[in-house]
């Protein structure tokens, strides 16, 4: 399993480095959206619920771009068949794709989150950063698992560019809610004492449930 996941991850990294299709697109989308919010809201800064809402909705839509591209090379260039012909555990592809999407999300957030702070936050992210990183990590894991599951399903259809977001968005709503609620106190100027723990646990539980669902269903999605 480790050898197969390693081979798949290496291949994903090489393809992304050669095509630059996912991470640059996601980053550019997120930064452009923050710029649009910056001018559209006509405020020097945002905080609390509004700030966390803007952050999480933007991250979600940018992530959808990556989800849509996740299996395209495999479906269009016969990579699925090549993989299915090998005597390997098919769950290795689930693990590799989740890790790939997680890597893409982390890479684009390295650009997107500082851009968000620069363009929309009046205060620095300094104190909030450790809790924000935990929240983002749990949110990213959920997006990666659900995104991989949905992308594997959508890529088999003719309307994959439409079906992917249509299936993913409703399933990702609880992650946006949990992420935004957990982030809101961190971005509040008045520094409320609300603990984000409840929402972090909700995110963790949601990740776990979908992780198990993905593990149970993924082999069937690869089947004819």
């Amino acid at each position, binding site marked *: 399993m480790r*050898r*197969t996941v*390693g*081979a798949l991850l*290496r*291949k994903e990294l*090489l*393809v992304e480095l*050669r*095509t630059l299709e996912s991470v640059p697109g996601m980053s550019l989308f997120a930064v452009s959206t923050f710029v649009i919010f910056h001018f559209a809201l006509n405020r020097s800064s945002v905080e609390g619920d509004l700030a966390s809402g803007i952050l999480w909705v933007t991250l979600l839509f940018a992530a959808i771009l990556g989800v849509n591209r996740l299996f395209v*090379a495999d479906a269009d*260039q*016969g*990579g699925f*068949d*090549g*993989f*299915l*012909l*090998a*005597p*390997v555990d098919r769950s290795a592809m689930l693990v590799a794709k989740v890790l790939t999407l997680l890597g893409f999300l982390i890479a684009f957030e390295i650009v997107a989150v500082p851009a968000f702070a620069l363009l929309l936050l009046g205060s620095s992210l300094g104190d909030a950063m450790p809790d924000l990183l935990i929240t983002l990590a749990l949110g990213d894991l959920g997006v990666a698992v659900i995104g991989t599951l949905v992308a594997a399903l959508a890529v088999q259809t003719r309307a994959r560019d439409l079906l992917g977001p249509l299936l993913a968005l409703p399933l990702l709503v609880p992650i946006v809610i949990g992420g935004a609620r957990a982030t809101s106190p961190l971005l509040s100027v008045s520094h409320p004492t609300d603990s984000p723990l409840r929402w972090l646990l909700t995110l963790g539980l949601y990740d776990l449930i979908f992780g198990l669902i993905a593990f149970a269903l993924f082999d069937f999605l690869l*089947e*004819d």
Partner: protein
Amino acid sequence: MVALEVEGLARHYGEREALSEVSLTLQEGQTLVVFGPNGAGKTTLLRILATLLRPHGGYVSVLGSQLPEEAWAVRGRVGLLAHEPLLYRELTARENLRFHARLHGVGEQRVEEVLEAVAISSRAGEPLRTLSRGMVQLVAVARAVLHDPELLLLDEPHSNLDPAAVELVAPLIGAASKRTRVICSHDPGGGLAEADLVLGLRAGRMVLLREAAEVQPGEITELYR
């Protein structure tokens, strides 16, 4: 020993019947050549034997394992050369073969061996999208035999290859490879020369199954009318 045993095989795509009542037996080391016009079901048959499609009816046994129940035992023992090369265009030939070698648990030395065998070593570091169709087909041949499969499933294996390249791949996928082979072909002369057993398909139905020595080229041509 029997390599392939197929009895009453059926497969459909929605309402459309792609294969119906196909039955044959192929001994180890023999070559089955499948003829038939476009849409006859040749590729569907190959994909079922490769475990990529599930049969919807009948009995299929490949290398002693029944499909689809024991498909896991067949994977890795079959080499498929399909219409698509099953290679990533952005990766180089060497990177593609190394990827497949890792999936099949094959050493890197074997990658260099097959690259040399198809005379592509000098271009092996270039992305596949920059190579000609013929060269991509050579890399696809290298991929199909990389793990030294017992059964070769070849869908028009010489397409895009010039005569010199056809000679080059003969030791790997030709009769000299001593492997059991199933070949889809549109070339009556070349196909019959390779065959031990001939299967003719039309609209998913078996219209010819005979020892190659008993088949006249005219009978194959008739399949396409």
